[in-house]
């Protein structure tokens, strides 16, 4: 066998990039803290991608149950795909979610380690409806945004140390974790009365 033609090898760079950004605002809507990072896509995302293209391999939902990428029955409410925008207030099974445990990411992660529930007591945040933008193209990049706002009305400070995107699969009503990211210690504090704006930017570059 003739070896790979070295002339054809160039510096590798991602063909799809995902970046995250979190901003904390105080009661006066003043920005108090901001952090950013590159995103950690997980097995579920890769497997869904494979499923979209041709395959029916399985991945884990957030309950550690195997699901098949192709075998999702699209019903009237939840069409096939990776829906993670356009859902309602208080939903923590779809869209951007936050957590408090920054254990290192592994490709096989299937959920956030310690998700922050929706609510107004203890370590709870109010999850507003999730949104996003349409695709914007400004050569050489095409990108769109998935975003969400979380309010802290718990009465205390909540420290966010992980974030991710959950997606709801079709008729199986299974929630899968497409990606998980961690924020290094000390994390990002959201004091009572403050809110966090979280944004994921998905982009392709020629």
């Amino acid at each position, binding site marked *: 066998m*003739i*070896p*790979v*033609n070295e*002339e*054809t090898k*160039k*510096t590798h*760079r*991602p*063909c*799809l*990039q995902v970046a995250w950004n979190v901003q904390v605002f105080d009661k006066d809507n003043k920005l108090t803290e901001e952090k950013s990072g590159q995103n950690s*896509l*997980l*097995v579920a*995302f*890769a497997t869904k*991608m*494979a*499923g*979209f*293209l*041709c*395959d029916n*391999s*399985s991945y884990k939902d957030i309950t550690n149950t195997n699901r098949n990428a*192709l075998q*999702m029955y*699209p*019903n*009237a409410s939840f*069409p*096939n*795909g*990776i*829906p*993670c*925008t*356009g*859902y309602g207030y208080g939903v923590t099974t*779809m869209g951007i979610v936050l957590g408090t445990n920054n254990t290192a*990411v*592994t*490709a*096989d*992660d299937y959920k956030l380690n310690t998700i922050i529930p929706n609510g107004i007591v203890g370590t709870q945040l109010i999850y507003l409806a999730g949104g*996003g933008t*349409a*695709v914007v*193209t400004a*050569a050489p990049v*095409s*990108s*769109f945004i*998935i975003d969400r706002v979380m309010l802290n009305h718990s009465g205390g400070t909540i420290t966010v140390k992980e974030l991710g995107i959950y997606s709801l699969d079709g008729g199986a009503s299974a929630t899968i974790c497409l990606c998980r990211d961690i924020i290094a210690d000390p994390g990002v504090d959201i004091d009572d009365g403050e809110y966090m704006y979280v944004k994921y930017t*998905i*982009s*392709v570059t*020629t």
Partner: protein
Amino acid sequence: MTKLTGIIRITKSTGEIYEYPMHSFVQNFAYMLNGLCNKSLPNAGVGTPMKDTANVSRLAGAYNAGATWYNWFYTAAAAIGIDTYGMVVGTGVTPVALTDYKLDVPIAQGVGAGQMKYSAASYQVGKISSGANRSFKLIRWFTNDSPGAITVNEVGFIARPYNHLIGQFNILICRDVLAVPVVVGVGELITVEMSFQITA
């Protein structure tokens, strides 16, 4: 940093191997991902106009096929002789633009001058594990039974999103111009692989 990366690998029946980092998802792919992310009503589309391979704007959106499930990128598993979707090759050298909706100069299926025979597409199951990496691979074979050598300069992938109300379209989602062309002699075969990988 974690990312989705791609590799195009072409192996000739003569044993030469060419490997290229895959760079170029095009704007259509961003539209499709955007559509996939929307929990929109079935059949509605979300108003993100992709361009099909005939340069016609098509909506990206959810769908409901009644009692039959379909996949959004349905289907890459193109049958033998199909040159309108799945992995495709061409001779064009025009640099990639985000707005590309087809190969520059596609090589048609056949045995006439400048044509190649397209095999059925294949794939290797996702979640091929190696340490922190997980990957899956698409494979297709192309044979040159034409009267002369053919130079492959570009490789692309055409997906087929399906919506039973608004139809099924051929949508180019990536195109790469090869840094080093691959000359396929008469009677030769090339194996083209696209591997996608994430790394935690």
